[in-house]
């Protein structure tokens, strides 16, 4: 079973995302911010990370920058999943090492196809 880490400060969003990912047969865990997510990755590196942009403690972009600099941190596919929907944000995310970008709101099928594009569904 592939492991996915959902990083989002909204409980509702985590719940919705978890629902979709479990239906795609992922083993899902959650983190509320970038720091928690880094700690989780330290414990065990997931195959996929669904990442929000704006979070307290550590933002998504700071997280991915730190993750990619780490040993083994280039392993997981990282998909930004966020309401930051302008080109500048999208470019910044890709430059920081994100594999895909999903603008919120999205539906089940959109996310599923994006995950197929990064070879994860």
């Amino acid at each position: 079973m592939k492991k996915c880490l959902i990083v989002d400060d909204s409980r509702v969003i985590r719940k919705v995302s978890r629902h979709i990912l479990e239906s795609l047969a992922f083993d899902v865990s959650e983190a509320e911010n970038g720091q928690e997510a880094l700690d989780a990755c330290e414990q065990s590196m997931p195959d996929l990370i669904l990442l929000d942009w704006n979070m307290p403690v550590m933002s998504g972009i700071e997280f991915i920058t730190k993750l990619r600099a780490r040993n083994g941190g280039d392993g997981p596919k990282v998909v930004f999943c966020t309401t930051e929907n302008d080109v500048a944000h999208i470019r910044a995310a890709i430059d920081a090492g994100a594999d895909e970008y999903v603008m919120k709101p999205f539906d089940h099928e959109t996310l599923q196809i994006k995950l197929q594009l990064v070879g994860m569904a």
Partner: protein
Amino acid sequence: MTNLSEQIIADLLLEYTGQELTDSRRWRIGSALSGLFRERGLDNVEQLVVLLSEQRDNVLAKETVDALLNNETYFFRDKPMFDQLENDVLPRIAKQNEKQKRISIWSAGCSTGQEALTLAMMFADQPMRWKGWTIDILATDVSNKAIKAARNARYTQFEIQRGLGVGQMLQHFEETSQGWQPDRAIRDMITFQQHNILEPMVRATRFDLVLCRNVLLYFCADTRRRAFDRLVEAMAPDGWLMLGAGETSVGHTDAFIPARKLPGLYRPFEAAEATEEQEGTNLAAAR
């Protein structure tokens, strides 16, 4: 709701497009037409039928038909089929057309244009390979509304990220206040035109490749056969037809037969015969 009004609406759709509104899809009439009802201040199908009978031009009839059509589409729909196109089919077409350096493609039933743009991006993504080639994509749909949207080419956030990877989105689209717009370079490869598949496609050159995907589903057997006839007439004798995932020509027409080892692809009957022969000769020569 009286069944008579529904029947009249279903007949209208059949007359204009060949699409059948099967009983299982009838319940959708009300919701499909709700936008039109709002625009025209109507409450139900009966009122629409009365209004239709009073109209002298066919504007309302066309709008009704447009509203009933299923325009569902997205970029790189059934991605593996586009990979196959790129890896196995385009190289063969390129070889066939090496002298003219021109490829003619028809996206028949193109809806709001995503299928044609997908094709255009495939060429644009390999500038070295297609340098000096003219890529001509004709994209047609019976729906005026769909063609208008395709020409306007502004995609909502929902549409732009359906099927399209973020890399290609950034590379080929620009964000405007009215939505995401494809670059000139890929738009210029495509001509959009309103056209009914059941009518002949009048054109000087024949198509090397025709995509007709998720369109023939709702035709009855006879209409579908007619559509296949129209498609084969418009194609080069050694051309290729790509249907939607899960669609087939087998059992519906004699005009096409499945391409060898390439699921979803079909060839005009004669071309297929010739290829078989050639492969047979090659085989004999190899022995």
